[in-house]
């Protein structure tokens, strides 16, 4: 029997990026906030300290910062005719755990969606005609525009100390920045990181072909920086251990490095780590949630925590699972296409390439992801899709660096995987490879969704979430086209050899590809097409706000975190300025 606690103002479920932002903004507005986190606390000075943080085995292979599959996982299948089986150890994607969440180990690529992405269905209909969008493609417009989000994108830049170069300041195009991006009111808070040599060579080749290269926007401070919460960040040390690892210099932005130092001083904030929120308590008649049910993993005791506002800010899978398990909203029914919770699951369709330059010395272990050079000439709104047979696109990135010995060795295709020849080739190419990526969009399809698994259960006895996903014809055609265009640039770089690495036909849960998952609790303009409204407020419970990429109607050709952070700030602003004065639905159906 759960012990009932005294009511609090706000319960935040999941203390990653979005949870950290909401806790900071709502305590600044005067509310008492309790942050629930299933994993441990993460304190950079102790947990991310040198020399132990430079441990490739611990962080990149044994996945020290990732969610514990033994407690909770998801099941997976490619299509609904199959039996889904549990992901027994993470592979394709790596949800994080502990304070800071997945934000502790991200690579820091900090992007905004293009203005036309926010009106995707309308944009495609207007440009190519309504009939060109397949019936199975369940994409939709976001109920919020780029212009509305811009001030919050800007604010999130200033939370993170992002390093980059603007390409569009208030409509004025600036060469050397991303000339395809939506208008920005301000430039990035910090100067771009220096390009890696591989990135620089890519930039020259891309420019020679008429494309528009620029430094990847990187969510780390290129110089010491004090953010809008008064938190000091160090300068990036170009250590080469960024992705899957945390930052010992507190230069890479995460809620742990940019928000928690301020929150730890905040008397209105209480952090409860190692607490497993199992359910949101829902009063369907009143259309509100009354609090959360959680188990304290340190005592085994179950508690009911009444709360005036609940912020659901776990990873995409946990957000969707929590809504399904708590019985809030109508589950998506694949057979009929009706229902919304679990609908429009989207992955990120990345396809890589490698090129080899025996005459260049690329010191592959040096450098941050911020050394990448990118072009945005092949994203959704950047080029004409007439007659191509697909929609969508993505940016291309090139870099050398950030390649530690276990994960960063690149050898040409056909090289043996072991033995003396393998050794010779490994040594021969280690200093001479450049890696590329195409950050492809995934446009929602009626066959890709999440629901409850009928067989497998988590440590608390709840059914696991079941993911049904495969790459669609549209996205495969998009990805092949991206690789063709990328190949043209690679050829112009003049490598001794190169290889394009197209995606396999079926999505596979191993090996690692991308942690960019989206959808499941999507935003909509009315209760018929969204789980949440434009302010991330549940259509079924006005005091429930759902954060993160689970609210994206589809995945665009950009990394999700920039938009995720901006949306959290936008939602917090509306709660502060409107909802707190007059609690109730912020959009009327």
């Amino acid at each position, binding site marked *: 029997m759960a012990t009932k606690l005294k009511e609090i103002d706000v319960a935040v479920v999941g203390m990653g990026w979005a949870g950290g932002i909401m806790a900071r903004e709502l305590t600044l507005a005067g509310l008492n906030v309790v942050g629930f986190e299933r994993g441990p606390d993460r304190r950079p000075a102790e947990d991310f300290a*040198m*020399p132990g943080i*430079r*441990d*490739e*085995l611990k962080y990149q*292979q*044994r*996945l020290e910062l*990732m969610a514990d*599959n*033994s407690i909770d*996982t998801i099941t*997976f*299948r*490619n299509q609904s005719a*199959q*039996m889904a*089986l*549990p*992901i*027994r*150890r993470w*592979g394709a994607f790596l949800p994080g755990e502990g304070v800071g969440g997945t934000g502790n180990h991200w690579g820091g690529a900090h992007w905004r969606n293009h203005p036309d992405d926010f009106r995707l269905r309308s944009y495609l209909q207007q440009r190519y005609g309504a009939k060109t969008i397949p019936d199975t493609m369940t994409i939709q417009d976001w109920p919020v525009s780029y212009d509305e989000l811009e001030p919050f994108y800007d604010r999130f830049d200033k939370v993170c100390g992002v390093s980059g170069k603007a390409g569009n300041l208030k409509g004025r195009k600036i060469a050397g920045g991303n000339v395809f991006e939506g208008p920005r009111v301000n430039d990035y808070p910090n100067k771009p990181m*220096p390009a890696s*040599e591989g990135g620089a060579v890519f930039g020259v080749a891309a420019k020679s072909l008429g494309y528009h290269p620029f430094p990847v926007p990187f969510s780390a401070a290129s110089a010491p920086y004090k953010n809008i919460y008064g938190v000091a960040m160090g*300068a*990036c*040390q*170009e*250590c*080469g251990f960024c992705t899957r690892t945390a930052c010992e210099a507190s230069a890479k932005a995460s809620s742990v490095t940019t928000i928690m130092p301020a929150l730890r001083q905040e008397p209105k904030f209480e952090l409860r780590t190692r607490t497993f929120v199992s359910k949101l308590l829902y009063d369907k008649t009143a259309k509100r949630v009354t609090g959360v049910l959680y188990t304290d993993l340190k005592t085994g005791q179950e508690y009911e925590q009444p709360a005036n506002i609940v912020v659901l800010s776990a990873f995409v899978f946990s957000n969707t699972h929590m809504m399904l398990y708590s019985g809030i909203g109508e589950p998506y029914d694949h057979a009929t296409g009706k229902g919304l919770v679990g609908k429009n699951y989207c992955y990120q369709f990345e396809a890589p390439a490698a090129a080899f330059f025996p005459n*260049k*010395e*690329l*010191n592959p*272990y*040096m*450098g941050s992801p911020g*050394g990448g050079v990118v072009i945005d000439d092949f994203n959704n709104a950047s080029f004409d899709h007439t007659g191509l047979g697909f929609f969508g696109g993505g940016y291309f990135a090139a870099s050398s660096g950030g390649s*530690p*010995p*276990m994960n960063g*060795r690149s050898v040409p295709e056909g090289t043996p*995987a*072991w*033995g*003396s020849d393998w*050794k010779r080739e*490994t*040594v021969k190419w280690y*200093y001479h490879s450049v890696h590329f990526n195409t950050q492809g969009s995934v446009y929602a399809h009626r066959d890709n969704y999440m629901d409850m698994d009928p*067989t*497998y*259960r988590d440590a608390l006895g709840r059914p696991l979430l079941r993911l049904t996903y495969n790459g669609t014809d549209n996205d495969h055609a998009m990805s092949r086209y991206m690789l063709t265009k990328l190949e043209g640039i690679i050829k112009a770089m003049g490598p001794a050899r190169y290889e394009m690495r197209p995606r396999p036909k*079926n*999505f*596979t*849960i*191993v090996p690692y590809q991308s942690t960019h998952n989206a959808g499941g609790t999507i935003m909509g303009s009315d209760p018929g097409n969204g789980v949440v409204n434009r302010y991330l407020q549940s259509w079924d419970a006005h005091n429930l706000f759902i954060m993160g990429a689970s609210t994206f109607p589809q995945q665009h050709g950009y990394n999700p975190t920039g938009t995720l952070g901006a949306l959290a700030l936008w939602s917090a602003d509306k709660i502060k300025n409107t909802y707190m004065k007059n609690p109730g639905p912020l959009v009327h159906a």
Partner: protein
Amino acid sequence: MAKIPRRGFLAGAGAASASAAALAASLTTKPAEAAAADAAPVETWLVLTAEEVAFFSATSDTMIPKDELSPSGSECGVPTFIDRQLASAFGAGARMYRAGPYHQGTPEQGYQLPLTPRDFFAAGVEATNAWSRKTYGKTFDRLAPEQRIQALKEMEEGKAKFQDFDAKLFFQRLLAITMEGFFSDPIYGGNRNKASWRMLGFPGLPATYADKLEQYRNKRYVAEPQSIADFS
């Protein structure tokens, strides 16, 4: 088994393991040097059986042969690394979802066995040696170098059919843990003397290059590799 038979077993197996090499050295060197070799610490094992030590010594020496680029896998401590990993929380299946029911599934659905890494490798060694005895008349560690290469290739290509174990899956995981042992920080028992880092030209720690990136643009940076222990 007493101490001598274990060493004898390894030597008889022809495994180029550190202990076998030490034993061979002691037979051909002067008494004073032999005494020094004897004084070197005897390799001790947390979980691996003698059969497994011989097996991993043989596989790691075949995957990472001794040549002008590096010492052999066993000389670099790969079997020690595997022993410690399998004795660790990882080996015991920590943070792995292990509940049933069990189904083979599709390759896209990933690893679906109930076995922990420790049990998986134990079963794999048994299955490989059973197949090796049937095919070559000897356990894997007693095969001639050319036969070892041939046996591993057959497993890698899925041609070897084990009676009740997936030979290809076992090969993939064996290769992965062998490479981890070769390339990881030496604190885990492998990569002795930072041999693989020297081979690659990977400088290890402290890895703070903000002041070196421009200076070494398109110019090779050379530094004596340093490990976590060097900074502790």
